[in-house]
């Protein structure tokens, strides 16, 4: 008994010396007590609304540091619009932090660059953590067979209606199906109210319609888009939007007119009857349109049901991190009930399925979003997903202008996406 203890003590002393030496010779991230500091970049303070950043910095990080003596977390807030560029240049310069709260669309891109740790290999308890989360948002972390992150927070788009416009259309409830949606366009004809508005034709905008209409953009293995994007279901779905647009019942923002009245202004202003948007709109309107009482309902259902698109952020660990164990400890903390529920009142939806009810109890307005999330799906998890948006925004516009058929436009987009998937 005695000898092994001594060997252990000796080796731990050596290890401690080695650690201290390493700490001193390295960039000073570890202080002489053996404490480590992990750096964490995110955009919790985005838009000047500091509620989320306050909770993180004054409640959550101190709680983590108290529970894990010896680990300090240094959070750096980066405006969302600058974060991708900062991460790209930092990756090129090998200056990434330990942890990043990354938009879920960026994970495959950075995984493909080789700057992220595959968490499904590095964390023994990855499966237990992963199975608690919503499948749609978890899937955004998958790249070439490994998961490179865990969901941190999520959101989705639901149908938001202006109650006065519903009244004008003689509807007692928001349109629940494609048929009711189209029928409402007829009732609004001549009232000066536009049925639907959106800010583009990217995947974030279009996929709720495509999935709800029973279609998809590629096959499940992400090998081809032809035969999927230009399917009969998608032709019918897009034709509905094109018809609405040509009848003046869909805003020109849909086809990229930056001069169109924005959705956040036009819905409370009464120009638009419905939009698809996320839970953050409540906060935006509370300041500017305090009298506006938006009606939230699921995305209108087509042949595929009511399926929306997943948004949100994942937490990822960088391969250059010198404190991966400590960083993984913080990742575990982000998946705890404590962490997840603390951010709900600030407008962050939890990624843990079983916390759904507690979330709705904390904020009843989130009920529709929570339900929609159960079936919501993720956009293509590929490194060059931004090019898919460019393709959709470019190739589909001629169909709306009536210069080519919907079938042809979808075919053109599918051909371009095929090239992208093959590269």
């Amino acid at each position, binding site marked *: 008994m005695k000898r092994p203890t001594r060997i252990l003590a000796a080796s731990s002393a050596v290890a401690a010396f080695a650690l201290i030496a390493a700490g001193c010779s390295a960039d000073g991230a570890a202080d002489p007590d053996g404490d480590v500091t992990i750096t964490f970049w995110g955009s919790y303070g985005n838009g000047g609304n500091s509620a989320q950043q306050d909770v993180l910095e004054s409640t959550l990080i101190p709680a983590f540091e108290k529970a894990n003596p010896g680990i300090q977390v240094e959070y750096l807030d980066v405006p969302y619009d600058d974060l991708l560029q900062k991460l790209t240049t930092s990756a*090129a310069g090998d200056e990434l932090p330990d942890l990043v709260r990354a938009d879920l669309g960026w994970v495959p891109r950075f995984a493909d660059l080789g700057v992220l740790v595959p968490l499904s290999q590095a964390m023994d308890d990855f499966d237990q953590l992963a199975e608690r989360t919503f499948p749609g948002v978890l899937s955004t972390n998958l790249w070439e067979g490994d998961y490179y992150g865990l969901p941190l927070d999520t959101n989705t788009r639901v149908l938001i209606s202006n109650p006065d416009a519903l009244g004008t259309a003689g509807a007692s409830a928001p349109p629940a199906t494609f048929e009711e949606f189209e029928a409402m366009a007829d009732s609004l004809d001549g009232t000066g109210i536009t049925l639907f508005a959106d800010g583009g034709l990217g995947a974030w905008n279009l996929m709720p319609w495509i999935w709800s209409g029973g279609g998809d953009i590629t096959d499940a293995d992400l090998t081809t888009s032809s035969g999927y994007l230009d399917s009969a279901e998608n032709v019918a779905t897009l034709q509905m939007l094109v018809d609405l647009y040509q009848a003046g019942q869909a805003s020109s923002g849909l086809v990229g007119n930056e*001069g169109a009245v924005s959705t956040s202004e036009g819905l409370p202003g009464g120009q638009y009857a419905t939009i698809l948007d996320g839970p953050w709109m409540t906060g935006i309107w509370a300041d500017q349109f305090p009298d506006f009482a938006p009606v939230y309902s699921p995305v209108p259902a087509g042949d595929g049901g009511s399926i929306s698109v997943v948004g949100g952020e994942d937490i990822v660990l960088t391969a250059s991190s010198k404190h991966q164990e400590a960083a993984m400890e913080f990742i575990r903390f982000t998946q705890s009930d404590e962490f997840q529920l603390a951010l709900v009142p600030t407008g962050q939806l939890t990624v843990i399925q079983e916390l759904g009810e507690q979330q709705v109890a904390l904020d009843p307005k989130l009920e529709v979003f929570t339900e929609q999330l159960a079936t919501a799906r993720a956009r293509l998890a590929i490194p060059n997903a931004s*090019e898919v948006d460019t393709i959709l925004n470019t190739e589909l516009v001629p169909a709306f202008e009536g210069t080519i058929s919907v079938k042809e436009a979808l075919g053109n987009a599918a051909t371009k996406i095929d090239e992208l998937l093959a590269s």
Partner: protein
Amino acid sequence: MTISTLATGAAADAVAPAPRPRIRRRRFSATPWLFLLPGFILFAVTVVYPIIQAVQMSLYDWRIIGSATSEFLGLDNYARALGDEHFWLSFGNTVFYLVATIPPQIVLGLVIALLLHARSPIRPLLRVLYYLPVVTSWVVVSLLFRFLFADQGLINWSLGAVGVTAGDTSWLADRWTGMLAISALGVWKGIGWSMMIFLAALQGVPQSLMEAATVDGAGPWQRFRAVTLPAIRSATAFVTIMLVIGAFNVFISVYLMTGGGPAGRTDVLLTYMYQLAFGDLEFGYGAAIAVILTLVVLVLSLVQLRVFRDRDGVTP
């Protein structure tokens, strides 16, 4: 001119008493080079090195991570640009911007400079007002113009009120009206700058020549053609060359007013390049477009210098 003459004079005065100027002339002196060194290092690190790096990147399928190997493509990126429809569309839009913004900036800038050249108690105030757009942030005025040209913006309202149009033009929803709106911003923001250069040049028009022309019976227009224009030729050359370079560098206004939309139809070279590099991580192809842009600007500048120099030879 005045400053450099003064400086040379002062230097001459300081050196004059020293007994050995002739010996120094023969010996190599490190002093001037040492004075040049800091500026040259700064220039080399911040300008020359990035240019060389961009040229290098343009020959590869450039991977941004240091450890990853970039595939050497030779001139493939350049060939790709020449066959890329969107590159040519962006190029066309840049040329449209150049043609639509430079003549108004030169003509209006000169007209205003001539008007402000006359003595008037409010001249300083007017100069400040005309120069104000130049020093205002591009971001602020781009957003302002986006609202002005919005579907329900002031431009549409005004045109509708006057009855020129029905007031329902979607300016930013079409390639040419969008480019027109972007060009309007370019002209509005740029006039003050060319006016300032012309105003400075007008101070140098020899008064004696003007008086001589008047005595010879020349009217205002003849005096302008025969005396003023030749006297400010070098300023005109400078303004033209700088505006051409500026037009090829148009970015912020396009990025913020239309974002290149709809369907990428108002993209200019720099917005397309930015999207390729930072949106799609195609740094190699983006760098190739940057190099092409540099070459085009270089050639155009040399041609302009030539044109203006030749004319100088004809009319001394």
